[in-house]
């Protein structure tokens, strides 16, 4: 991954729509991925629309690679179609009357590239994304994963300088999501420009982003690397959103067909990823586990869960009727349980406790 220090996108966005004001500042370096994370209605899509040029700024300035795209102070405004931007839209918005290939070729055709060349280039992209065989299909005939790949090809076809991904995986089922996430990760690494990923899925954000920008009710509430935000979430939303368990290590295949993720602080049993191919060992794998998927027990549980970790409770924090319990096991984990469970089990700091979770609940992100 090439990481450049120079800031390629500098954006100050202030937009008011139907009485709802969105204000945000973004600075993204070339070759960096920033995830814009926030609950529904926080203003994420408005920011994407503003960057793409579909929503005029009420106040602010956009600069990409040293070129001013919009500046309310000077009245400069480059129209949407002349911005070097590629977008994957929420719900994809593939053109229903055009074939997959024509969809992918659209940004080139719109820029006056001759049909034959546009189709050849778009075809190459579909090939890279593994959907070349679906070129003649209409979007309505594509599976969720295929449509996703066509939308990605369409966003990249004209070699934009900035890639905007608005909830790119919201239309996918869980299975396809894992597959596309790996693909997306590769694509983002290979894309030299600015990448902005809009999502409300912390796993997606953790897996793909170098930096998180949290937005709530139209305002940025926190900016930082995933580790920074995880270590010190500033709002309850941030805590809930990014407070996931992360296990980084090397993945090895077990004889029974599952896998084990060996981290510096201990081992976690995981499902063997379907997209691992014939490999039996992979370095640099990220495992993500939601705290809500961790169950707590006073005595060693007997059940189907492959992971049972024992440790003392390091901290209990309550948030409304939920409680987050941090356990100093190896590796350490955070569990989210109901406040009623905490009371029933009589959990307090320093108590020994068993934390258990199923292997399949650990989402894997391959390098």
């Amino acid at each position, binding site marked *: 991954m090439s990481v450049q220090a120079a800031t390629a996108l500098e954006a100050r966005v202030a937009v008011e729509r139907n009485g709802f004001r969105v204000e945000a500042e973004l600075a993204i370096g070339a070759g960096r991925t920033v995830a814009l994370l926030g609950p529904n209605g926080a203003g994420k899509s408005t920011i994407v629309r503003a960057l793409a040029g579909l929503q005029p700024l009420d106040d602010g300035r956009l600069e990409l690679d040293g070129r001013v795209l919009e500046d309310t102070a000077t009245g400069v405004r480059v129209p949407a179609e002349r911005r070097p931007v590629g977008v994957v839209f929420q719900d994809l*918005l593939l053109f229903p009357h055009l074939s997959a290939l024509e969809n992918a070729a659209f*940004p080139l055709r719109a820029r006056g590239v001759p049909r034959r060349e546009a189709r050849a280039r778009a075809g190459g992209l579909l090939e890279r994304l593994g959907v070349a065989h679906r070129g003649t299909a209409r979007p309505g005939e594509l599976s969720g994963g295929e449509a996703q790949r066509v939308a990605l090809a369409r966003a990249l076809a004209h070699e934009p300088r900035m890639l905007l991904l608005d909830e790119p995986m919201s239309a996918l089922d869980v299975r396809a999501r894992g597959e596309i996430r790996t693909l997306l990760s590769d694509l983002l690494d290979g894309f030299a420009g600015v990448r902005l990923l809009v999502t409300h899925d912390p796993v997606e954000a953790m897996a793909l982003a170098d930096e998180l920008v949290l937005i709530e009710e139209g305002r940025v509430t926190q900016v930082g690397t995933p580790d920074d935000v995880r270590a010190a979430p500033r709002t309850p939303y941030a805590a809930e959103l990014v407070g996931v368990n992360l296990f980084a290590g090397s993945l090895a295949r077990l004889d029974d067909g599952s896998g084990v993720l060996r981290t510096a602080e201990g081992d976690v049993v995981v499902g063997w990823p379907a997209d691992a191919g014939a490999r039996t060992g992979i370095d640099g794998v990220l495992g993500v586990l939601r705290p809500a998927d961790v169950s707590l027990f006073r005595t060693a549980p007997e059940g189907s869960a492959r992971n049972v970790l024992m440790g003392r409770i390091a901290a209990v924090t309550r948030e409304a009727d939920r409680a987050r319990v941090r356990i100093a096991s190896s590796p350490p984990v955070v569990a989210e349980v109901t406040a009623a469970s905490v009371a029933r089990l009589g959990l307090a700091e320093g108590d020994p406790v068993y934390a258990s979770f199923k292997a399949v609940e650990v989402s894997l992100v391959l390098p």
Partner: protein
Amino acid sequence: MRERSGAAETHGHAGRARRSAPAPAALLALPALAFVLVPLAGLAVKAPWSRAGSALSRSGAWTALGVSLEVTLGATALSLLVALPAAWALARVPFPGRRVVRALIVLPIVLPPVVAGVALLAALGRLGFVGALLGRAGITLAFTTAGAAVAAAFVSAPFLVLALEAGFRGLDTRLEDAARALGASRRYVFQRIVLPQLRPALVAGLVLAWARALGEFGATITFAGNFRGTTQTLPLAVFQALQTDPGAAIVISLGMLAISVGVLVAVGGRLLVR
């Protein structure tokens, strides 16, 4: 909100609970069917089949067919020219008084055609306030083929406006935004995204407008007159033949009936049924 969704649900139940009536109740449709079919059967029964060919040529039907083609195609083109921008504005621009503007634009649908003809004559006739200006520019509409086309367009354009407005409303504008963000100019978006998706509404609207223009009688005869070879369209030829050779009128009418049935089949009855 909750209450409303509850009401919708009740509504849905009522719809599902509706029982089918017994088959003999279908006879209720019979009077309306007879009302249409009996006169049409009259055409077939009274038609002078043996001398149909000579009746057609003597009554000037072939000439009238040519005029009708010219007039209806001209009228349809003119309708498209005014209807497309109007339909777009009505569907997409939330301007004040939009409902009033729409009502005025579709007024010719309910206006008696003869009134339309008199109005056109008053405005666009040789002595009309617009007609006088056109006359100075060397353009005469009253009692010309072009005038017949204008009269037909006046009554048929509203059908196209309504069909196209519904078409525009059926489009997902987010697709147009997506196209813009991917590098398409407004013109390219219209060509590649809007127009292809609008095609069913466009075709249905054009066919309806054309069919209405083909049947136009009152406005045409009032504004353009009834001159063989220039303004005598098929309906006017029928009218004239009735006074001299009723058999010929019936034959021409049968021909127009065939065209109407063809049109109905062409649009699949979709727009007309709903």
